[in-house]
């Protein structure tokens, strides 16, 4: 497959959404305003804001947001002059009548409707609704390392038929290798009418390499976050993407220095919570487990006094996907029982 370099790459900054995972969803309005303004100046096309699991996800189950999402979206919107505001949407968390309707009112420009990589059917109503409002809508397949290129193509075609104006493969577990990206993005690029994107995670240290592989395979949309601020081992750092794109001559609207400044700002705003590569993130990448499980796994492991790496390996063996957070506690409890660990006291 030959190298295909598109004329203009659309860059999506997911710092204020994927980073919410890394910040236990406690991002403040001031952080939203400050960072959104910096991202706007950096020239990113879209700035994604909200709970790590998207609209309507704030809950005891997956973590409560510090501030209501409507306030968060409006604060971000007010801080953007050039960049457009996007949100992540998982049907089930977000309903059409409530969350999507409210987000339209809040001025969201792009809705990225996500689902597990083999369940595109559940995105139809949400995609259709967004199209009826005139806003832009993309389809997002999460945990895409779990499906073959052919299966992903089928699911993407469904989203395209529903009216999605772009599709993005998420490496939610940070489990891809560049050859996987080349194969999957390459097939989608050759068969779909809508632009194709890639969202990397860095569990195996390959986020930048995988993002480049995606572009070389024909992707026209790339996700990243400042300093890689995101779930698990984080995402492709935008400031690095900006530098690499510039060096390779890829066409974007990014201002390199402003991108570096935005990254520096993120370092200050989210100090102490920026992702690091450690034994847990590496194992979760190897196990192919959703990066957003990182903190819940560590909490459960602490509670049950088990090795979080074992929990990740078992989650991977069971092919756990986002939304199955209950399985974390279940596995930790089983491991504790089998290993003679300590069960938490009954209340």
């Amino acid at each position, binding site marked *: 497959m030959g190298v295909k370099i598109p004329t203009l790459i659309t860059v999506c900054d997911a710092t204020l959404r994927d980073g919410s995972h890394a910040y236990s969803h406690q991002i403040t309005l001031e952080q939203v305003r400050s960072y959104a303004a910096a991202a706007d100046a950096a020239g990113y096309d879209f700035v994604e804001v909200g709970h790590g699991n998207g609209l309507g996800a704030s809950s005891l189950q997956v973590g409560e947001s510090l501030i209501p999402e409507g306030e968060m979206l409006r604060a971000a919107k007010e801080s953007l002059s050039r960049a457009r505001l996007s949100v992540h949407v998982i049907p089930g968390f977000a309903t059409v009548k409530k969350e999507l309707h409210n987000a339209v009112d809040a001025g969201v420009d792009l809705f990225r409707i996500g689902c597990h990589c083999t369940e595109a059917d559940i995105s139809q109503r949400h995609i*259709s609704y967004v*199209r009826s409002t005139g806003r832009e809508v993309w389809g997002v397949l999460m945990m895409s390392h779990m499906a073959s290129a052919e299966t992903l193509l089928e699911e993407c075609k*469904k989203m395209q038929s529903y009216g999605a104006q772009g599709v993005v493969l998420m490496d939610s577990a940070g489990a891809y290798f560049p050859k996987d990206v080349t194969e999957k993005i390459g097939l989608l690029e050759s068969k779909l*009418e809508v632009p194709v994107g890639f969202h990397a995670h860095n569990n195996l240290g390959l986020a930048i390499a995988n993002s480049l592989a995606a572009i070389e395979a024909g992707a026209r949309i790339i996700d990243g976050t400042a300093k890689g601020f995101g779930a698990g081992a984080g995402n492709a750092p935008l400031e690095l993407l900006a530098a690499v794109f510039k060096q390779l001559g890829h066409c974007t609207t990014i201002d390199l220095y402003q991108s570096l400044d935005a990254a520096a700002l993120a370092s200050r705003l989210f100090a102490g919570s920026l992702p690091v590569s450690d034994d847990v993130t590496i194992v979760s990448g190897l196990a192919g487990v959703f990066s957003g499980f990182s903190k819940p796994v560590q909490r459960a492991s602490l509670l049950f006094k088990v090795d979080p790496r074992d929990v990740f390996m078992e989650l991977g063996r069971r092919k756990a996907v986002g939304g199955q957070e209950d399985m974390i506690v279940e596995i930790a409890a089983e491991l504790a029982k089998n290993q003679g660990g300590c069960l938490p006291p009954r209340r």
Partner: protein
Amino acid sequence: MHPAIALTQFDAESVLENQFHHLEALRGQHVFISGGTGILGAWLLELIKVLNGRYNFGLRATAFSRHASAFAQRWPHLGQQPHVEFVDGDIRYLTHFPSDTRYIIHAAALTDRRLLASQPSSVAEINGIGTLRALRAANLLEDIQKFVLLSSGLIYGNQPSDVYSVEESSAALLSSGDVNSVYAESKRFAESLAQSFISESKLPVVTLRPFAFIGPYQSLSLPWAVTDFIRDSFNGGPVRIMGDGTTVRSVMYASDFAFWVLSALANGRARETYNVGSPVPMDLAALARMITLSFSPQPAVLSGLGQTGHPRSRLVPNIERAQRDLQVKMTVDISESIRRTIHWHSLTRTP
């Protein structure tokens, strides 16, 4: 009268004004319309209303669909016609037609592109098995005069780039190994079933292959190019074209479409197949521009947003056979079609 109803009535009267006499064979008959509440069904009922009201045709109709009652309630000017009966039902389970039925228009099908992707087996079942049911039931009628099968222009697959317009004799270029072919394949299967009944039972089937249409009653929620462009324009734009805008289609107004179908019912030669659509090619960029010109401020048209490198697509019918046998013509050109469609939606849509 609601201005939207006045508009469609005017259209129906206009298309029939100098052509109603071509439909004389239908005077006093009973026509059964499966799928009678889609855009085609709605327009057939509009024309029947005028044929009866203005020209005393005494034409009775049964509109059969899964949502027939709901349609009759939604559009009472059609739903309360004295000569029309609305019957809720699923074509897959049809067992018989009313015994006095002499003319059948079989238009029931799954055509929503979203369903083609999500439920391809249902598409095959409804379009294929549904047609088998309809043909079997028609075969039981004592005095069936004509069975018009609505197939699809998509059965031609990819029109060769060096062919200006496809004739009915063109060979299909479909890939049966691609699930996206299921709609076209289901229609091809339906045509083959019709040929089987023609051969076995001499059932008088006329096959129509419709192309692209525009007009009132067409839902803007359907993700087709023309509906996308109109809906996005109502929302202020921009109108987004994934490719470079050079994809070529042709678009016919719905009142002409309905008249052509009635004419096929009245005048179509049994065993024959006819293309139905506009012969005037138009690329998507021009179509988008034409649509956005109807709005103020004019929405922007963005093209080249999708993946690159796909072959240009063209689908335009050759309609010489239909013009010759059915005595039909286009009465509404594309710019007027767009103007009337947008006007109708502006009168009926809820912001």
